[in-house]
């Protein structure tokens, strides 16, 4: 995937998030940002610089931070909890009871998800967060694909009333979308059209899906690519159309193959218009240290593996 030209001068998703949050700070005077001693890692150092009085330090204590967000929201503020995705898992029960069950207008923004974390290794690479947070009633789950979409999703998250879990990303992310891009919670988008197969991707896998579609095109295979930035609620209507029109689906995520985007897509299509599916993701194992692109190759979620999955699912369609 990594086209140096695309990556050059492009922010990581966490940087894009931090800058967007800072830019939106004046427009959303009730916005407060909660940090557990990793503002530089999550990108919210930008907000700390622009709005120091609304930056709340909780120390390395994520459970208290997560539940305290419920209390802050109860006083009318819009708390944005920021930490690494693995530490969100540590506080998931606080998110369940004190944010979702109490239906608070609180946001969780998780940086460092998936293999995209890179060298920090398996302990730091959350490959379970989409599945876990998606299972909580009332939680909206978002994973934007590029810096432009991240900025738009940050605004949409603040405008939305209710709990949201949003993934950012650690590594530089290629810019895929222009300023004319539209982001809406709950809506997927066809970002490349095709007839033979649909690749449904989120987060860093969207760029890899576009690269895979290029590879397939060289073999005369026409692949559609859907950017499914909202994992919950999933855009079931768009999936149904893609199933009808292309007859085969590949899902792609930097996450365990169980319970994340692939699970959400399968659940939706199973009830509407089932078709052959292949799931690209980490195959129910933990990550490891390495550079993100090396890891994507090692764990079979890079573009060539996406293209292979597309060929397999097309073959199943014909059989």
């Amino acid at each position: 995937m990594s086209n140096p030209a695309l990556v050059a001068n492009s922010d990581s998703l966490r940087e894009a998030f931090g800058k967007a949050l800072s830019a939106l700070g004046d427009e959303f005077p009730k916005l407060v940002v909660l940090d557990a001693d990793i503002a530089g890692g999550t990108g919210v150092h930008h907000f700390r610089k622009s709005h120091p009085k609304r930056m709340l330090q909780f120390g390395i204590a994520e459970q208290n931070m997560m539940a305290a967000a419920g209390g802050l929201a109860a006083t009318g503020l819009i708390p944005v909890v920021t930490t690494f995705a693995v530490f969100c898992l540590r506080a998931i029960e606080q998110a369940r009871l004190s944010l979702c069950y109490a239906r608070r207008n609180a946001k969780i923004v998780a940086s460092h998800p998936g293999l995209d974390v890179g060298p920090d290794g398996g302990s730091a690479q959350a490959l379970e967060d989409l599945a876990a947070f998606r299972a909580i009633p009332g939680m909206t789950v978002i994973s934007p694909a590029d810096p432009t979409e991240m900025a738009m999703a940050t605004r949409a998250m603040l405008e939305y009333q209710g709990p949201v879990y949003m993934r950012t990303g650690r590594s530089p992310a290629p810019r895929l979308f222009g300023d004319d891009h539209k982001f809406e919670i709950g809506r997927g988008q066809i970002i490349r059209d095709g007839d033979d197969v649909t690749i449904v991707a989120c987060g860093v896998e969207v760029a890899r899906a576009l690269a895979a579609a290029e590879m397939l095109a060289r073999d005369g295979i026409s692949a559609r690519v859907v950017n499914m930035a909202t994992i919950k609620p999933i855009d079931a209507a768009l999936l149904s159309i893609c199933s009808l029109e292309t007859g085969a689906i590949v899902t792609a995520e930097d996450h365990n193959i169980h319970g994340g985007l692939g699970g959400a897509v399968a659940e939706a299509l199973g009830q509407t218009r089932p078709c052959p599916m292949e799931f690209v993701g980490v195959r129910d194992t933990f990550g490891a240290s390495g550079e993100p692109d090396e890891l994507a190759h090692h764990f079979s979620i890079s573009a060539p593996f996406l293209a292979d999955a597309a060929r397999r699912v097309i073959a199943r369609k014909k059989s």
Partner: protein
Amino acid sequence: MTQHPKKFVPANDVSLEEKLREAARFVRCHSIASIFHAGSGHPGGALSSADLLACLYGAELNLWPGTVTDPARDRFVLSKGHAAPALYAAGAYFGFCDPKASLALRKLNSPFQGHPHVLDLPWVETSTGSLGQGMSVALGMALGMKLQEIPARVYTLLGDGELQEGEVWEAAMAAAHHKLDNFCALIDYNKLQSDNANAAIMGLEPLADKWRAFGWNVAEIDGHDMSQILGALRKAGTTRERPSLIIAHTIKGKGVPYMENIPAWHGSVKLTEAQTREALTALGASEQEIEGFLHV
């Protein structure tokens, strides 16, 4: 917010203390009755915390049934959510919910769930039942009020066993760090938890020293003495730059002799009608009151 005077009157006002003792007696009776009707529930910790709840709702909180959505109200969070019957009973006594309806504890379609839920009952302020979280939510409320310069106070009641949750100590550090002098936590220190004595399960002592070391203003009182409870709450309200902790020494099952100091009554237990009558009688309920509680 409409500025209500503090309900406080001087702690030596005997008539107020008498009123609060009557409120606490009602809280205990109503808790026993609702647990009887539910067929399950936690009586021990409801009985031990009744006097604290009576003082909070009856004398301390700047909160009335008409102000439960006022942004400037004082807030109380029952962090030990399993004492919900006592919270509902206090709510019933002070006009936040109906005394009869709130006997429908733990029933399908009743807002009086086994643990408090804010979407069912807005005046309970947040949903609790997972120990440690109410403390953090209350801390978030106190911090939110400070940030918005709302001159209201936040109170939370914790169980002693609850202090074994690491989250409580995360919150203890954060409250002191942020100098939340609008925040007051109370511990219902009845020395017993679900399976056994605190000391046998996971010792808490020296408890006051721990909280002092965490930067809190600490008071130790008899949690069944209205004068001491009111005095500690008043002192907490005048403390600056630090959060306050009231360690209330209590008796689990207080007021019902066959329950007192016996961990088995932590709950969740089923009360027979005979046990219920015996408990209500011990609590000083009249025959007429007992019939009223038993037949809804």
